C-alpha cells in the first residue's frame, strides 16, 4: 500500500489527515515541521508527500524544495495544503517543485479524492 508522509504543525489537522488516509488503507507517517519531515523522508521512501505551508522551523515550501533535490524524490508527488487566499504561495510552491495543492479548508472526502487521483 502506498506510503504517505503528512506534514503539518497543527496536531488536529495531522490527526484528521492521518485518520482519513489510514481509514482508506494508506500507510501514513506524520511530521510536525519541514525539518522533521525531511529527516523522515530521507530515512524512508514515501509515495506521496502532503505538507502544510506555514510551519515553524522549516516551512513547507523550503521542505519541498529540499526534498525535490533528493534523487529518490525527483518524481514523487508533493501536495501543499494551502488557503485559497495564498495565490502567491501556490506559485512559490510550484517553483519549489510542488506537484499541486489541496485548498484549505477541505473535508476528508476531498482529501481522499485528491490523493486517489495522484496515486492512481
Amino acid at each position: 500500500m502506498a506510503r504517505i508522509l503528512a506534514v503539518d504543525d497543527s496536531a488536529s489537522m495531522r490527526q484528521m489527515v492521518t485518520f482519513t488516509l489510514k481509514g482508506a488503507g494508506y500507510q501514513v507517517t506524520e511530521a510536525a515541521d519541514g525539518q522533521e519531515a525531511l529527516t523522515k523522508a530521507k530515512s524512508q521512501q514515501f509515495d506521496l508527500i502532503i505538507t502544510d505551508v506555514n510551519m515553524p522551523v522549516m516551512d513547507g515550501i523550503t521542505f519541498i524544495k529540499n526534498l525535490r533535490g533528493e534523487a529518490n524524490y525527483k518524481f514523487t508527488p508533493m501536495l501543499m495544503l494551502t488557503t485559497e487566499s495564498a495565490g502567491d504561495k501556490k506559485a512559490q510552491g510550484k517553483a519549489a517543485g510542488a506537484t499541486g495543492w489541496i485548498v484549505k479548508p477541505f473535508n476528508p472526502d476531498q482529501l481522499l479524492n485528491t490523493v486517489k487521483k495522484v496515486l492512481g
Partner: protein
Amino acid sequence: MSIDLEQFHETFFEESFEGLDIMESGLLELEQGDVDLENINTIFRSAHSIKGGSGTFGFTAVAEFTHDMETLLDQMRNGERQVTEAVVETLLGSVDVLRNMLNAIRDGSDIDVSSVAEVTVAIKAILGEESAGTGSTETQVAAIPAKGWQVNFKPYIDIMKTGNDTVRLLRELNSLAESAEVTINNDSLPLLSELDPEDCHQSWSINLIGNDISEDDIREVFAWVDDECELIIESLAQDDSSVGSEHSDNDCRETEPNKRKTDKRSNKPVESSSIRVNISKVDELINMVGELVITQSMLSRFGEGEEFNASTIEKLKDGLAQLEGHTRELQESVMRIRMMPISFAFQRFPRLVHDLSTTFDKKIELVMTGESTELDKTVLEKIGDPLVHLVRNSLDHGIESPQVRIESGKSETGVIELSAFHQGGNIVIQIKDDGAGLNKDRIITKAKEKGLVTKEEHLSDDQIYDLIFRPGFSTADVVSDVSGRGVGMDVVRRNIRELGGAVEVKSTAGEGSVFTIRLPLTLAILDGQLVGIGNETYILPVISIIESLQVKTENINAVAGNSEVYRLRDEYIPIVRLYQIFGIKPISTELESGLLVVVEAEGKKIAIYVDDLLGQQQVVIKSLETNFKKIEGLSGATILGDGTVALIIDIAGLIELYQKDMANVVPIKGGGLAA
C-alpha cells in the same frame, strides 16, 4: 465515506488555545518595540492554523473572524503595514474575542456576538474599510455547456520535475468524458541517443465528448500544471447553448463544515484533563516496561520449584537488584510524563503586567527567566493563582509611580523579574521587584493594630517581613481593585504549603523585595529520611535537612521555661523534642543518647530530637486529609516496605506548631529562631 470530524475537536481546541497564548505573548513582545520578523511570523502562523482548523472542523464563525486578523498580520509580515500600538491593541483584543468564541463553542454556550462584531469592525477599520472579501479574486468564467471540447495540451519540457504525471492528467480528463479521442504529437521527440527520459517532449490533442463537461472542469484537471503547459480549450459544438446547468461543484468547502451539531454539546468537560506527552517519553516508558518484564520472567524462574541453593540465592539477589533499578527508572519516567515547563504558568504574566501597568499608570518591564524549568502538572496548575497574586502585589505595592521613582533617583521604568530554577531537588520561583521594598514601620504598626504582635516584642527584620503572611494582614492604605482585599498573603502561603512548598520574603528599603517560593518537584513522591522515635517511624523530607549530629552536652542551653537551644557553630537553634509534640513515648529523653536533625523551612531552622536515624528512601505520599483528617505538623503518610504506616513531617508546619507551644508558655523572644 463519511468521517466524524468531531473526534478531532478536542485536539483542535487544545492547540488553538495554545496558539492564542503564543499570539498573545508574541503581540506583547511586539509592543515592547521588538519588531522582529520571526515573531510576527509566529503570530501569523498561529492565526493561520486556527483559521485553517476552524474552517476544516466546521467553526465557520471562527474562521471568518480569523480571516481578517490573518490579513492584517500578513500585511504586517510583508512590511506593508506599520506595527503601531493601535494595531497591537486591536489584535490583542481579537485574541480575547477568539478565546471567548472558542470557549463558547466548546462549552456549547452562545458566542458573544457584540464583542465579535466590535472587534471585527475595528480590524476592518484598520484594513481600510474595504475588506477583500474571502479572497477568491479569479472571476468565474461562465460555464458553457457543450457537446464536447477540444483540448490541446502541450506540456513544457520540465513538467515531470514537479512530480506531475501527464498520464495521470490524461486519465483524469478521460474520466470527465463519455468518450475521448486522443492524438499524440511526437514531433519534438529527439533522437534516442539525445533523449533525457526525465524530460517531456510530447503533446496531446484530445477530443472530449460529453454533455455535462464545463470548461472549468477541464481547467480544474490542469490547475496544478497551469504554468507548466500550453493549454488551449475549444468548444466542439457551439450551438445548443442553453445556460442551464447549475454550477456548484467547485465550492465544496461551504457545504460540509456548516453543519453545526446542536445536540450533546453541553456534556463536554470544560477543563481538559489531558496532557500532551512527547513520544520519546512514552517510548522510554515502553522500554522500561520491557526491561521489567524480562526481569520478572527471570525472577519467576526461582518460584518454579527448582532447588534452592547458594548459587540461586546469588542470582535471586542480582535479579532483585535489577528489579529495583528498573522500578526506579520506570518511576522516574512516569514522573517525567507529568512534568511540564513552567512557561505554562508564566505565559499569562506579560499580558497581566501590561494590563495592570495601564491600570496603575506605572511603567513596568517584566523579565522572565527559566521558563523551561519543568515541574509537576498538578503543582503547575495550582501555583498559577499564588503567582498572580504575588506579581500583582509587586506591581501594586512594590513598584512606585514613575514620578516617585524619578524623585528617588531610579529609572522611570520599574523591573519585575520572574525566574524559575532548580535548587537541590526543589523548584525555586522568585518574584523580584526593584520597588520601594517593604515598609517595616508600617508592618509593625499594622501588626500591633491587628493584635498580631504584642507591644513589647522585638522582632528581627525577617520576622517583621514574615508578618505579611499572617491571616488578617493587609498593608494597603487604600483597598485597590487589584490587591489589598485582605485575602492576601496568608492565602498565598497556605496554597503554597498545600503543595508542600514554602514562601518567604526578603526586602531592602528603597531597593525592592524578593519573594521566594520553593516547591517540591512532584507531589507524589518524596525523598524521605526515616527517623525512629520510640516505636514509631517518622519521615523527614531530605530536602529540608541540613545536617544530623550527635549532641554535645556543653552546647545545650536552656532558655526561659522549658525551651532549649543548641549552639551549632555560631548559631543558636531551638531544639524540638518530637515526642513531646506528638505525645509519644521515646526510648530516651536524654538528649545525649539520641540525635539532633537540623532542618530548615522558610528561612527558619530547628533541631529535631529523635532516637535514631533509620535510613533514606523514596516514599509515596498518601494524603492524610483524604484518608483521615488534616493534622498540624504532618504533611501526609506513607506505607513502608514492611506494611507499617509512617507519618511524614511538614517542617514548616512543625516550626509553627513549636512556636505556638512555646508561646503558650512564654512569648517568643527576639531572635529565638535563628534565621
